[in-house]
């Protein structure tokens, strides 16, 4: 048995952030008016080093959110900055993040959304994966490359007015700070609650303006019933991108509605 090498422990993932008597996770009250709310303790940490975590998110409303994950109840140790999620009502998601997390590392989470009046809570739970158990690529850091502090996080990708034809490239970052070994893309609708059904393709490209080289292509479907794209997360994608590289994205789709054709994307690199 491959498990016996780990001190006889049979289960090697631990979840934190559960709410007793609920099928949801710990609730984080999200700040309104594009302003972060306070930090909420979600997970206290485990007594082993973790090779990766799973983040569970659950939402009551159809509302784009940006979440910060810090190892202290403050901004000094934010290790996941502005994680973008664009759910439908009652949607949930599980993200696998291949980052190393030291023993006894807690997580505090805060968030923001755009509207002024609605109270929004997001359920957040963390699953810690035991160190040494997995033979997968692991990384020290997760960097938000689509974030321009104080300006924007997710990028609007416009497939353009001609159906099934690539739109223009949109710069994600003019130069990567680190050499990326893997990346994660979060797709959203920018709070559009009257979406149109459509088929979509997107590409990630690298290189200077007008010399972009596509390195990854994916697909998604826009749902007018859910007002949500499916899927909303792609990755982690294990592709290396050198330090200092410009990254851009473009899309094409089967619809031309000037509002509904536009999707949003946030891009996170692991190194």
């Amino acid at each position, binding site marked *: 048995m*491959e*498990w016996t090498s780990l001190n006889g422990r049979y289960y090697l993932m631990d979840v934190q952030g559960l709410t007793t008597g609920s099928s949801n996770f710990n609730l984080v009250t999200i700040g309104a008016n594009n302003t972060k709310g306070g930090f909420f303790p979600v997970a206290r940490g485990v007594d082993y080093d973790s090779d990766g975590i799973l983040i569970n998110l659950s939402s009551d409303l159809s509302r784009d959110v940006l979440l910060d994950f810090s190892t202290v109840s403050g901004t000094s140790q934010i290790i996941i900055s502005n994680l973008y999620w664009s759910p439908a009502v*009652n949607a*949930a998601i599980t993200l696998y993040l291949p980052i190393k997390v030291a023993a006894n590392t807690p997580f505090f989470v805060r968030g923001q959304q755009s509207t002024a009046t609605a109270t929004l809570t997001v359920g957040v739970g963390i699953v810690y994966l035991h160190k040494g158990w997995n033979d997968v690529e692991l990384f020290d850091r997760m960097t938000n490359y689509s974030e321009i502090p104080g300006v924007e996080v997710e990028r609007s990708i416009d497939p353009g007015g001609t159906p099934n034809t690539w739109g223009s490239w949109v710069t994600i970052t003019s130069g990567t700070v680190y050499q990326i070994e893997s990346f994660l893309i979060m797709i959203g609708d920018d709070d559009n609650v009257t979406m149109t059904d459509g088929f979509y393709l997107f590409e990630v490209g690298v290189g200077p303006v007008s010399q972009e080289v596509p390195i990854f292509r994916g*697909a998604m479907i826009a749902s*007018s019933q859910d007002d949500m794209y499916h899927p909303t997360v792609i990755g982690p994608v294990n592709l290396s991108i050198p330090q200092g590289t410009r990254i851009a994205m473009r899309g094409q789709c089967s619809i031309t509605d000037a509002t509904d054709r536009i999707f949003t994307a946030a891009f996170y690199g692991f190194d």
Partner: protein
Amino acid sequence: MPPWTVSKFPLVAQPLGYNLSASKGIVLSGTTSGVKSSYAEITPSTPWDADGFYLFFGPDLLGTNTQTFRIDIAAGSAGNEIPIIWDIPMIARRGAGNVAFFPLTVPAGTRLTARCATFQEAANPRGATVALTLMPRTYTASNMNRNNIAVTYGFDANVMFGSDIDPGGTANTYGAYTQITASTAHPIRQLIMFCNQHNNASTSAAKFRLQLAVGANGSEQTLIPDIALGNLTGSDGIVPTVVGPIPVKIPPETRVAVRAMCNITSVVDRHFDFSMIGVC
């Protein structure tokens, strides 16, 4: 320093089977009988040795019909196709786009194809659309395992669903375990889980937590604790439909079971179905 050597830049994934004139993938014909259709070619020959691929899959038409699919991905020459992944489940509610990463090696020069079977709720059977993004061999490391086998567990081809998971009649309390397999055929290093909502076209809003366990009946021990799921009443779908791949180590001949809790008690709507693909 990471324990692997980075290949030369740039590394580029290879898109295969994308139809740029329709912003989707190739179309797999729908059937009405649950019998799988003929294979459709994704690529006649993969360009290089690959360490896996992203599979994007969904209904080939946009609309409101609910329809159940199972999709196979195969390798081999025409007439000699051998499924390398089979019975990938999908419910074609409106907007049912999905992505799953399969960390399987694919040798250069491989012909890849796909086929599907459908179970129609409405009068107009649909097909599926699939596209694939092939991932280059990124790393060379002696301690990294490469995977060659994918096995589907928990899918019932007779009813076109995964195994039925019933959270039970008490809200927010775990229901009984449902056995997904009595014995895994191979070790599992990467686990991909699929959740769907049967063919329920009138679901209730609900939140779920799912646990996957290993061990004998009555002695199950939780392996993957508390994955979040939610019912979308707009499309009557459950999300996420695909979870993973999650790195695990499940030995061969292991019993796997799943249980769940939810915040509703509706005898019909609290149910969902589950299947999984183990990769090694």
